[in-house]
């Protein structure tokens, strides 16, 4: 039987929350021509029905709290409960209240900015972007403003990305009005330096890199890459999705990156919330600081304030000051771990990944770019197995699968990121399950999963005849 929709639980005239005692008449307040004629068909449920509905739905959902979730490039580490309590302390603040009455919030933002600058080796920072991709757009717009300011806006029209890049990198470059050129990866899975040299030039605005890259490998020639970029006047952009691997051990700023975005919902353990909200602060070197979006949190003689007077700024990328409650969580995380804890977390993230890689190789999985892995690695199943079937088989065995079919340069890719908060025995149980899958009959794999809330879904039907709302007749 299907799980009912909230609309199917609705009964005409049933009431949940009543917040108003004496309800005024609409006609007394609002001219008739502005009033809606038909009420929205929202569900009518009592509070217990509401609670059973969403509790029931939550039981049809896995998260880090229920299940090992080694999704590559997503850093599904444990989200401490402390942070939820922390966020509640700051929930009741209005973005337009007098900054004098929000000094605690502004101080927290300023301090977080200082911590993040220290951890990335950057000179200035904005906390405004709401997610990683939003940070990317902000960073590329900053680079664009910089080139325009120098009179090179018209000539530098290309953004370079490696072929192993996250899809958001080329999508961002397009959104910022750039043409995108791909740089192939070399045989070891790192940027092909010769190919890069051929592409660099006065027509290039930026090179976007993830380091460690999406194969989980540190770009060992990063200093040469950044030197080449500098010589060509090309700005070097750091996609912070994989910062968890090197947090505290090495800094993008020291590697020669000009711009960095961070995913606070990955590295700094803001919960992913089923797809958001996240937070994507952007750090820059001094030469790009004038272009940061407004406002910036600044420290003055009379306390902290919001600095709007930045004539070269790219303007605003979001209303207000960013996903503030995410910033509170990241602040709490950094203060709990300190440098020592952050370094240990990064090291154990790497150790967990390398350990799991060895276990999977033992089970018969291949690792096509088997260099010194950082926080994640990309494995391939033996010949004849499909990554998709293995993923679905894992669901049956009680694990969330790794990222599949990414990066694009590895066929049947299984991108595994265990994170540092998983115990050794969990990694071993996962490896056992991965091994077990290779022993399963082909038919079992192709039809898995069996005991999940639903089984394989008809994706084609959803694409051809999408039904996007309950009332959609198709």
């Amino acid at each position: 039987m299907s799980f009912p929709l909230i609309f199917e639980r609705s009964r005409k005239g049933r009431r949940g929350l009543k917040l108003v005692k004496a309800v005024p008449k609409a006609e007394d307040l609002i001219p008739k021509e502005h009033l809606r004629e038909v009420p929205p068909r929202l569900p009518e449920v009592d509070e217990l029905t509401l609670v059973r509905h969403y509790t029931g739905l939550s039981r049809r959902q896995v998260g880090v709290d229920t299940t090992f979730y080694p999704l590559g490039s997503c850093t599904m580490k444990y989200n401490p409960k402390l942070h939820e309590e922390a966020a509640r302390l700051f929930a009741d603040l209005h973005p337009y209240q007098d900054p004098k009455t929000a000094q605690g919030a502004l101080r927290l933002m300023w301090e977080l900015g200082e911590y993040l600058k220290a951890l990335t080796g950057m000179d200035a920072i904005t906390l405004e972007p709401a997610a990683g991709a939003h940070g990317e757009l902000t960073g590329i717009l900053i680079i664009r403003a910089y080139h325009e300011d120098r009179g090179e806006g018209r000539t530098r029209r290309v953004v370079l990305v490696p072929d192993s890049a996250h899809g958001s990198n080329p999508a961002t470059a397009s959104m910022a009005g750039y043409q995108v050129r791909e740089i192939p990866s070399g045989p070891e899975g790192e940027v092909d330096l010769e190919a890069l040299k051929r592409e660099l030039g006065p027509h290039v605005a930026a090179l976007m890199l993830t380091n460690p890259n999406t194969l989980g490998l540190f770009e060992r020639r990063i200093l040469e890459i950044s030197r080449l970029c500098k010589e060509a006047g090309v700005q070097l952009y750091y996609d912070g999705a994989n910062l968890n691997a090197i947090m505290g051990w090495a800094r993008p700023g020291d590697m020669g990156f000009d711009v960095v975005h961070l995913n606070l919902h990955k590295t700094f353990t803001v919960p992913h919330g089923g797809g958001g909200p996240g937070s994507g602060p952007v750090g820059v070197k001094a030469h790009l600081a004038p272009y940061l979006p407004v406002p910036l949190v600044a420290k003055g003689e009379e306390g902290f304030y919001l600095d709007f007077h930045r004539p070269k700024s790219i303007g605003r990328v979001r209303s207000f000051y960013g996903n503030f409650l995410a910033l509170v969580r990241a602040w709490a995380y950094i203060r709990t771990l300190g440098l020592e804890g952050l370094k240990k977390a990064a090291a154990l993230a790497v150790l967990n990944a390398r350990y799991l890689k060895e276990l999977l190789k033992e089970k018969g999985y291949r690792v096509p770019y088997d260099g010194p892995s950082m926080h994640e690695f990309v494995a391939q199943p033996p010949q004849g197995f499909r990554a998709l079937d293995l993923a679905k088989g894992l669901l049956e065995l009680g694990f969330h699968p790794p990222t599949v079919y990414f990066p694009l340069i590895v066929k049947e890719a299984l991108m595994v990121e265990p994170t540092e908060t998983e115990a050794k025995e969990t990694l071993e149980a996962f490896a056992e399950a991965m091994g077990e899958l290779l022993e399963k009959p082909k038919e079992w794999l192709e039809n898995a999963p069996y005991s999940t809330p639903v089984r394989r879904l008809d994706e084609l039907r959803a694409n051809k005849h999408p039904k996007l709302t309950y009332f959609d007749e198709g």
Partner: protein
Amino acid sequence: MDYTPHTEEEIREMLRRVGAASLEDLFAHLPKEVLNPPIDLPEPLPEWKVLEELRRLAAQNLPAHKAFLGGGVRSHHVPPVVQALAARGEFLTAYTPYQPEVSQGVLQATFEYQTMIAELTGLEIANASMYDGATALAEGVLLALRETGRMGVLVSQGVHPEYRAVLRAYLEAVGAELKTLPLEGGRTPAPEVGEGVGAVVAQNPNYLGALEDLGPLAEAAHRAGALFVAVADPLSLGVLKPPGAYGADIAVGDGQVLGLPMGFGGPHFGFLATKKAFVRQLPGRLVSETVDVEGRRGFILTLQAREQYIRRAKAKSNITTNAQLTALMGAMYLAALGPEGLREVALKSVEMAHKLHALLLEVPGVRPFTPKPFFNEFVLALPKDPEAVRRALAERGFHGATPVPKEYGENLALFAATELHEEEDLLALRDALKEVLA
């Protein structure tokens, strides 16, 4: 405390297995020049001390419960039931639902959210959420430009100035041309829409709080072959004519007013609704109903060929992480209130705003600015600098008088009321304002 489970013995054993001598050794292949930089961070603290520090910081803020500040974020009731349900770990700690068999909770709740937003806006479909109202507007306008193949945008000055600022940044990036339609008497005049214009944008209630009849704007847009984009307050749609009913092709807005904490501005969520005909140009995630191999109803992400991880440089947007959990909180709020409850909260807010308006006009030197009819926010002309007034009110324990940008006029301040305000709260604010302006 670092939340890692490893014992010393386990670390030793695992290091042996991977052939490393120590944890430092795992980083030995990084260039020496960048390894182990000096980083200045505060010493780690035990959990109770972190909370203590946070409480100390929180105590330096004056909470804004029952604030009279407006500007699209308001102090409405934040229902505990919504907070409790959204805090469930399965929702809180899930990733994007790429594995639908174990993500039916988020997927179905999102499908229900999409339905509720479509109902509220009077349009056919809605995506799974955007970051906030401002970025939803920018993405909505980019959708209209893709759909029409044009590069001109006309935006009413009645649209929230921060939304317009974000729109400007997004449009400059793609080389689109943005023109502002100045308000006349607090409302948007029917514009001349040129041939190159792909999107006309206006807001109801507008930034000044005034109700606008946007039908003629939608008609003017359509006559010129442009699409009409409406910015709407979702709470107001419990009583006001929905954008779909006055000809909007796209409706966007911010969900904070649907029972979300104000959170000093975020996270909230943005919604984006439109017509089914434009679905292939829609940015962001989208959930569809379908069936599983046993014929059971299930939900799945659909039309993913629009998105960055499939289409890369040709994607409709770079958006990846959105505001899923806060959007679900909005949906939970709508379900908790139902159509009647929503209507009641909206009407009560309007009633209290009108009472507040009348009371504040009793204060010498205060003049009306927003024309009637207005909704639950309004602008007053003050005899003093609004920043000073806001501060003086705060010193008396009141949050009110959001300074309005000077493009609208001198010494203007925005006020709002909600269902949380009682008669005595309104009187107290009036008396405080009297004192401040005396």
